[in-house]
């Protein structure tokens, strides 16, 4: 089919919206990151000056940026695998032949995914309360003394990770379930006729056949976890002692609280660079798997 007018009519609105309100701002942000755009320039754009790579060099020597970088990486490298592991475990349990009411468990586990992150953070802030929180109460039964989860710089990030796993694992679990359903049942039947035990089947059939799903999930999870923001914003404001400051939270504070928009734009591009690198590495891994 062709019909130039129809194509323009159908594609025009979407391309205009994406072009003007996505691609154009991306280019503008890139330009912005090479200027000293600040609160004075906000009133009159002419006050912004080109400063070359100054924002980027300043960023590399800013201890706050490195702190935010390490925190985000900690969230990503511990929280990511942890939540994927829990997702896989839950999917395997639910898909087990021994289990009925699959729909009930699937829905129950998925429920936190659809809830509003801000509201969840408000609830968990109280679960982590040092004196009245449910978590410390439960831990007191096994003889663990009260921990000030969100007020202690060593525990604040683990607390945020735990909450994120609770909130997110249901999403990847559903994708894993879809992946498991795609594995032909005959493979398992053949394996058990050959005398393979359950663990062996897991190792030789389930894990390799789930590999593409796992890479897809890893990319999605990494992109999402790099953008950590609401949890520290609501629960800790980045504290204590900046132990939960994330890259996006720092970007928000620099850009929209102190109006250092040039510097903030540089931060945004560094975030983009990390996500791009992570995606490339993971799709390279995927290609290698498919080749072998």
């Amino acid at each position, binding site marked *: 089919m062709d019909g130039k007018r129809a194509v323009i009519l159908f594609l025009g609105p979407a391309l205009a919206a994406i072009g003007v309100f996505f691609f*154009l701002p991306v280019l503008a942000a890139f330009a912005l990151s090479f200027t000293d755009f600040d609160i004075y320039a906000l009133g009159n754009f002419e006050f912004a000056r080109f400063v070359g790579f100054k924002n980027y060099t300043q960023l590399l020597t800013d201890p706050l940026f490195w702190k935010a970088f390490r925190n985000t990486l900690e969230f990503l490298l511990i929280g990511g695998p942890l939540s994927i592991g829990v997702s896989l475990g839950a999917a395997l349990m639910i898909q087990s032949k021994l289990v009925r009411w699959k729909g009930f468990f699937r829905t129950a586990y998925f429920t936190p995914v659809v809830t509003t992150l801000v509201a969840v953070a408000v609830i968990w802030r109280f679960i982590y309360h040092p004196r009245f929180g449910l978590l410390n109460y439960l831990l007191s039964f096994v003889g663990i003394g009260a921990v000030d989860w969100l007020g202690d710089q060593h525990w604040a990030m683990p607390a945020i990770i735990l909450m994120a796993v609770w909130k997110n694992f249901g999403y990847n679990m559903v994708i894993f379930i879809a992946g498991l359903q795609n594995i032909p049942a005959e493979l398992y039947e053949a394996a058990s006729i050959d005398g393979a035990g359950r663990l062996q089947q897991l190792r030789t059939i389930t894990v390799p056949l789930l590999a593409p799903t796992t890479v897809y999930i890893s990319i999605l999870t990494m992109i999402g976890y790099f953008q950590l923001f609401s949890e520290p914003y609501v629960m800790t404001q980045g504290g204590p002692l900046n132990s939960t400051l994330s890259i996006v939270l720092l970007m928000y504070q620099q850009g929209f609280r102190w109006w250092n928009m040039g510097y903030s734009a540089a931060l945004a591009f560094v975030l983009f660079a990390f996500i791009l690198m992570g995606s490339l590495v993971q799709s390279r891994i995927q290609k290698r798997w498919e080749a072998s």
Partner: protein
Amino acid sequence: MKAPATILLYALLSFVALLTLAPLVWMVSASLMPTGDASAFPPPFLPSRVTFAHYARLFTNLNLARYLFNSAFLAVSVTAISLVVNSMAGYAFAKYRFRGRDPLFKLLIASMVIPSQVTMLPLFLMLNKMGAVNSYIGVIIPGMASVFGIFLIRQFALSIPDSLIEAARIDGAGDFRIYRSLILPLCKPILVTLAIFTFMGTWNDFLWPLIVMTDDSMYTLPVALANLSLEHVQDTELMMAGSVMTIAPVLILFAAVQRHYISGIMAGGLKE
């Protein structure tokens, strides 16, 4: 041999279900407790006496009806507009042949790796120039079209046989007529899925409304709740009532359409 394994599996499954649901059940319970009840040791799981005072206070003193309206209005508007825009584009990418189609589509897909935070500073400056900061338009504009939505609809529309479209054309239907009376009804399953995704995504969104809505009366529920929770740190029961009001609408929607929602994620996950 099988019984112990089955019992263990059910015990584990039930334990995890308890962990996932308990915080939400506790939220509802605490929202009904008299002020100060939740701040006790050991933490009570049920209210000593049920009260709706916190809900009343949210509506009378804390402008909750307004935030509810803002959130609902924005979620509905973004969903309605983006469904039209994305479905037209997805259909065009699937069923029309034109120069540069494939590179253009690839460019859009590749752009999904750019995090939306990158666009936020210039977008804010643009909206500021347009006078659209602190307005509904400011939230709607970046949500009007989405590459993910176009992608989903294109994948679905590819499976519509060309012969159906040809037959409609021979019957004298124009391009727009075909889109409206043939394509849209056929795409209904994916449109429903996309509508749910968009509605929930907009309802739960936090960072962008936090940036754009500078005036209290324009806050969405998450922004208002975050503000409330930072100002009324001590008032646990009130915050829980606010959390219930924020979460309940999406949970009810989810309960009604969960099959669509979950199968949508499964489909998205498999197509990559």
